[in-house]
């Protein structure tokens, strides 16, 4: 294991009915993290939310026509860092160009990436040959 404390990998069909499963895994992990100094119930909610938002995006932007398409989600806890990776097979996007929501003129959409950025410590998105990956990191100290 060499430093890894927990590894979770889930592969789901591109269907929203699996969101609850993914979110709840994050929630349980958050509640279990007794190394975390902060509010564990809040962390549990935040992990639930971030996993739900990232998985929703991956499902929405996947190959809509392919019933065999899948989304892979991994969660690793490694020393004092929690790393979430969500893999999609869609067209990809430019994370840096996603704007912060305009709070004075609230809209129905565009709050998912904002939540991820605000509640976690770092976010990146890479297009790769096999799949695109959204990588989210949270320090646990």
């Amino acid at each position, binding site marked *: 294991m060499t430093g890894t404390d927990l590894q979770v990998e889930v592969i789901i069909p591109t269907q929203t009915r699996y969101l609850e499963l993914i979110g709840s895994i994050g929630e349980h992990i958050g509640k279990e993290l007794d190394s975390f100094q902060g509010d564990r119930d809040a962390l549990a909610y935040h992990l639930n939310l971030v996993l*739900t938002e990232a998985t929703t995006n991956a499902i929405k932007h996947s190959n809509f026509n392919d019933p065999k398409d899948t989304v892979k989600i991994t969660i690793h806890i490694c020393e004092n860092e929690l790393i979430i990776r969500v893999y999609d097979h869609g067209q990809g996007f430019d994370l840096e160009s996603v704007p912060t929501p305009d709070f004075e003129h*609230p809209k129905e959409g565009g709050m998912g990436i904002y939540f991820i950025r605000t509640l976690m410590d770092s976010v990146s998105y890479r297009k790769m040959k096999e799949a695109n990956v959204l990588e989210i990191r949270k320090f646990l100290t």
Partner: protein
Amino acid sequence: MNVKREKVNGSMVLFVQEERIDAHNSADFKELMLQLLEQGETDLVVQLQSVRFIDSSGLGALLAGLKNATAKSGKFTLTNIQPQVLSMFELTRLNRVFEIYPNLQDVFASDQ
């Protein structure tokens, strides 16, 4: 989406009977609210006591309800929001946009 409806003091109260509002059920929920508004129920109260988790699409559905009600000169009120759910409204400043009450009694007291 499991929602119980009840007419109280002339308002249509929607008791959301789900622990989660997320991208799996938020479209249904939005649809239900817009239909009721269409049918002339322009005073909606959404009671969120059972809801322990909401995501951005759930907030979006509620915002759609509010905008639609306002466009019809109606009312759209939220009550019984659990603390962790409320913190999502705060993070998006939507707590300033919605009319939010701690419970149904306070909703109707405010009508007087």
